[in-house]
């Protein structure tokens, strides 16, 4: 395993808005696959812009709360948004 820098930008490959989610998540949540450099495609949470998500749009990586753990503490992870 080696570390690979992925940059902050990605391109939206596909997405869904989940209205039924596993415990800890607060639906509705937006999730999708984002294409990064070097052909890497990752599953990630999304922060949809007010105009909505469009396949092919450029998104930027930030960190944010994804869900609550069993102690009701925020679990942070990657979120791609405008």
């Amino acid at each position, binding site marked *: 395993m080696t570390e690979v820098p992925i940059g902050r930008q990605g391109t939206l490959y596909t997405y869904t808005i989940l209205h039924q989610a596993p415990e800890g998540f607060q639906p509705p949540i937006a999730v999708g696959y984002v294409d990064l450099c070097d*052909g890497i495609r990752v599953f990630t949470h999304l922060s949809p812009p007010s105009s909505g998500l469009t396949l092919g749009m450029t998104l930027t990586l930030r960190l944010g709360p994804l869900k609550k753990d069993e102690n009701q503490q925020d679990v942070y992870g990657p979120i791609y948004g405008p």
Partner: protein
Amino acid sequence: MESVVNLRKVAIIGVGLTPFDNYNDVSSEDIARAAVIAALKDAQLERRDIQYAIFAHLYQGEVLGQRVLRGLGFPEISILNLENACASGSSAVREAWLALAAEQFDVALVVGIEKMARGLISFVSADVELALGNVAPAQYAMCARRHMHEFGTTAEMFAQIAVKNRQHASQNPNARFRDLISVEEVLASRPIAEPITLLECCRNGSGAAAVVLASENYIRRHGKDPVWISGSGLSSFISDKQSLDLTNFGATRAAAEMAYNMAGLGPEDLDIVELHDAFAQGELLHYEGLGLCKKGEGGRLVHDGDTKLGGCIPVNLSGGLLSKSHPLGATGVAQFSELVWQLRGTAEGRQVENAKIGLAHSQGGTGLEAGATAVTILSRG
């Protein structure tokens, strides 16, 4: 892959089904026993005729098969309990076929059974995507969205699949949901994972299905009515999902290719198909994976009505998972009931005239490729 041993011919000689429902007050053992008894009756066999039994399930605890058959007073017998996610039932049929084809036994029983509660299926998995919320409806929804983007497939086309399977179910007394629905109702039902709506999702269910398989020698000796297993394929891709093409079900393609090659047949030879429509969107993608049409043309197949009863390749005449519900271990085995009835010409109300060749497809797992897909081709006459 060249076969290194000569496999002898194997056929299904009996099927049994307990219609899928809630069964809140019935034990999973008793649900399974009803299917076993029905399949033995259909095959006109006694308990002592069964030499090997495989039980497919996900959540019914250890040595389920032994518990079920002990309660029925079965004599000494070889029993295997098998789990392969939602493809457990079809994988079990494949294992029984192999054991008989390789001359280990002459008669085998396969039972698929599940008793389920409501809600999302929970998987014990270290899958990082699943931990982030990539549940089954999300996976199919993202495939569907990409398919719409690349090929112009519409939400109405997916909805038409749900409508079609209900039409088929309306003629199947074993189906759980038999009321007709319209495209408008499907699209207006509650969103689950956009673009998937409630009426495009299969429901959890409880129930059991059983099949009896026998070798050609046994069938000839005992004058049984065979539906032959002509081809079988099983595939799993365990990739890191780098650049995964979400419009392509690679494991479906691979399992289908194995089965077609073994049978010496192609998709153009099929008369009927029962496939894994856990979501209406999945059915369309599996049309393409099974080669019923070219990649990207699934929508056209729906639009032209090709997969309806009366079309050139009817799919899910039983009503599919969408209309029957999805008791995980039972689902893959139940597909064989419908195919056998169709190939025998006894599927009253939904019979495809002169059906000779059928295909069963079932698929499961956490992640679209890190799962299992089984394809079986059946033929008669």
